[in-house]
């Protein structure tokens, strides 16, 4: 391979002499994180766990972007993809954020270990009320049947396993790619491919585990075999949308991708965004439809509380559900069908749109839960009411992830100049 740094490295691609713009994000992120942790204990008597869920929503949004990016990087390695090489590098910068997420997740784990009342996973404390019915968790047949999985030590072990896998994969893929910049040794390509082959299996396992542990077990009565794939599909969409925004930001920077990135890169990202918009809808619809159609009460309640109050009237979640169908699927789907919308401002617009409704999707998956039993069969469910933690946690984790990203981006070259496929990526055309 004749590609060399002399040919393709723009003057700005050197590593030295950068201004570090990341410090305000670090300070702001730490302050907001401290505020968010403090806010965890401000839940009302009727709903003490509400701030915890807001924190979880904020964390999940950024986690999903990182998870999607990790999958994309590995998939591109596996496919020996040429066009995506300079995009992959932006994701490699971002993947350092897994460490931030792991740290920001720690308060939730510690609270779970301490058995605190503010933790939303009802099953961590057997003296709590069963979700939406009378009696304690300890007396719940369903809990007892699942106790081998739903216990704090195992949960903590899984937390460690999940982040160890994500961080380990991200660390190695980043390091090998950066090292190739310096040495030009293509053995790292083979290493990365091999790691990705195994890594996709590992990531599929731990991502499923994360989706089940953190979201599905919020009501441990409910279950769906599709749930891990839902989180994967949502993550892929979020990652693609976030990457589009990063690419536009980098495209305007002299020390970024200005003059290097082609319109076709955006077009291809738009195509992938369309594909995963359909995939997300396919997965979400299939899960809904099969549960609706079989109409088995042990699982339908999950959708019921996202549609109606116990008295049969439509609740606020119904409108959110409609928004997900029409605004999170239909609008981006129709919009992205058009060729001209996969470039420039239309693409930025739809990426922001998708990310906004991605938060709503996460909200919709995490927040609606049965709160307390009322009467023999009735229950109240948590309404669609924002909480300050939703905002602070989202901003805190986001600021810290962006801080980590900027730091990483300022330390390394904006494109993998010695990647064997770099010329394919730089000379991309439809």
């Amino acid at each position: 391979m004749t590609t060399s740094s002399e040919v393709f490295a723009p003057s700005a691609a050197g590593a030295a002499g950068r201004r570090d713009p990341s410090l305000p994000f670090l300070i702001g992120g730490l302050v907001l994180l401290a505020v968010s942790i403090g806010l965890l204990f401000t839940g009302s008597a009727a709903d003490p766990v509400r701030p915890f869920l807001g924190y979880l929503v904020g964390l999940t949004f950024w986690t999903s972007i990182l998870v999607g990016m990790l999958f994309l990087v590995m998939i591109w390695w596996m496919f020996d993809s040429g066009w995506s090489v300079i995009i992959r590098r932006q994701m490699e910068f971002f993947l350092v954020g897994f460490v931030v997420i792991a740290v920001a997740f720690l308060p939730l784990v510690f609270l779970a270990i301490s058995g605190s009342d503010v933790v939303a996973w009802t099953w961590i404390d057997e003296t709590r009320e069963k979700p939406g019915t009378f009696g304690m968790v300890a007396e719940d047949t369903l809990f007892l049947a699942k106790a081998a999985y739903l216990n704090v030590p195992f949960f903590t072990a899984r937390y460690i396993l999940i982040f160890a896998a994500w961080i380990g994969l991200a660390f190695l893929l980043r390091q090998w790619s950066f090292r190739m910049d310096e040495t030009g040794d293509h053995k790292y390509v083979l290493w990365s491919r091999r790691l990705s082959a195994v890594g996709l299996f590992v990531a599929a396992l731990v991502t499923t585990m994360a989706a089940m542990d953190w979201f599905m077990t919020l009501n441990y009565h409910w279950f769906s075999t599709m749930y891990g794939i839902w989180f994967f599909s949502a993550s892929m969409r979020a990652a693609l949308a976030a990457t589009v925004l990063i690419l536009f930001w980098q495209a305007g920077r002299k020390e970024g991708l200005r003059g290097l990135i082609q319109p076709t890169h955006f077009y291809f990202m738009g195509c992938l965004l369309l594909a995963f918009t359909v995939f997300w809808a396919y997965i979400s619809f299939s899960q809904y439809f099969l549960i609706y159609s079989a109409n088995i009460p042990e699982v339908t309640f999950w959708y019921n509380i996202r549609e109606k109050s116990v008295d049969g009237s439509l609740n606020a979640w119904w409108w959110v559900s409609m928004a997900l169908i029409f605004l999170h699927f239909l609008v981006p789907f129709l919009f992205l069908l058009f060729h001209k919308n996969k470039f420039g401002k239309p693409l930025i617009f739809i990426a922001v749109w998708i990310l906004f409704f991605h938060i709503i999707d996460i909200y919709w998956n995490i927040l609606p839960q049965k709160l307390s039993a009322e009467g023999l069969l009735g229950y109240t469910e948590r309404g669609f009411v924002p909480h300050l933690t939703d905002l602070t946690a989202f901003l805190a984790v986001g600021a810290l992830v962006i801080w980590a990203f900027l730091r990483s981006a300022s330390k390394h070259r904006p494109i993998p100049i010695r990647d064997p496929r770099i010329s394919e990526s730089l000379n991309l055309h439809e």
Partner: protein
Amino acid sequence: MPRAPIIENARSFAWITDKVCGIVEGRAPRWWWIGFILSGMLASFTLMGLIYLTAVGVGVWGLSHPVFWGWAIINFVFWIGIGHAGTLISAILCLLKQKWRTSINRAAEAMTIFAVACAGIFPLFHVGRVWFGWWLFPLPNSNVIWPNYRSPLEWDVFAVSTYGTVSLLFWYMGMIPDLATLRDRVTMVYEKRAAEAKTAFAKSFEFAFYQFRRVFYGVLAMGWRGSNRHWSNYEMAYLLLAGLSTPLVLSVHTVVSFDFAVSHLPGWHATIFPPYFVAGAIFSGFGMVLTLMLPLRALFGLHDLITQYHIDCMCKICLATGSMVGYAYAIEFFIAWYGANPFEAFAFVNRAFGQYAWAYWIMITCNVISPQFFWFKWARSKLWLVWILSIFINVGMWFERFVITVTSLANDFLPANWNYYSPTAVDIFTFMGTFGLFGVLFLLFLRFLPLLAFAEIKSVSPQADVHGHAHGNTDKAH
């Protein structure tokens, strides 16, 4: 780090044309006649089975309480699944700009059409009175009986017929430039063959055959002249059909999965069924493509057009989709336990350790374990091993449908209902015969239609690379 060439030995346009057209224009080899006769004999089993069933009723199948869905639905899902690789290769890989698909898409699409034909037999005849089959369509009849639109079996009618129609159109439309080439060579081929004919009968036969080929390819080529406008329209139509076919690949097997998943039956009602079925279908389809293409590659000497790179790609898709299926098996098992529904848990434990455990472990071995060999280059390069593994995949995917269908029904909610399901000879012969039918159709395809999409292959061949380089890259194909 150069990319593997898609066409080896820098074959020219002329060589590619002669190679692929030669399969159709040469005389049928002896193995073709043997295969055709054997396939025809095998296909007669299906014919006899269906005649017997029509005369006597569906009781001739092994269906009995509580297993009222037996081999018929298994065979239907098996054949429909086989077809998926063709559409995936022609549509999805086209949208993904995977150029290696050009060497295998034609045969895989043909496989799709014939597999759908084999699949359609079973739901059609399972209605018993096959002459009322048209009631499946929403046409008012004398008794004003309308189909039950809430049944996924009814959705199958629409899904499969749409899929079959679009696949057929896609296959045919893609063939037009190649058919035109064959048409243009008819006279040349006739002159050559007529000169070789020694007896008057042989000369007459050659003339009749020439007339037939002239009309056959002339009509099918639809006046194709290879003009710029023709190619422009062709490319656009191809892209549109690829866009239309892509959701169809997903929807057909999704609807097939709904046949099971909308029910309450333990082992059937799982939300993961739609993507799990689609992955399984693509897995089985690629298994069948390997099963067919490896011998054809050797028989027709197509090593430069279907290279080790193509085989590697197909093996890797089998590995990926087989592993997805393995993921689905695992998550189903976990949720069966986690869901804490004793019936669901029993269904899965029963699958693995009950009276049908043999079928379950055949399924696991063939579908999850056997594709893991494809991790290794040495395994992918030993074509006899790849071929054996592809047979394993075909077998495993049939058993997957057997395990899903039969184990859940045979041991349902009430132990008093339980029964051991066995197929009858009619079941077995009718199914085996469909391989004969498939073989007959595929062998006819080999003789009369271009096996490889050579117009498309030329576009990815070294001769088509007018620059002679790829932007500073030393390789020619990317």
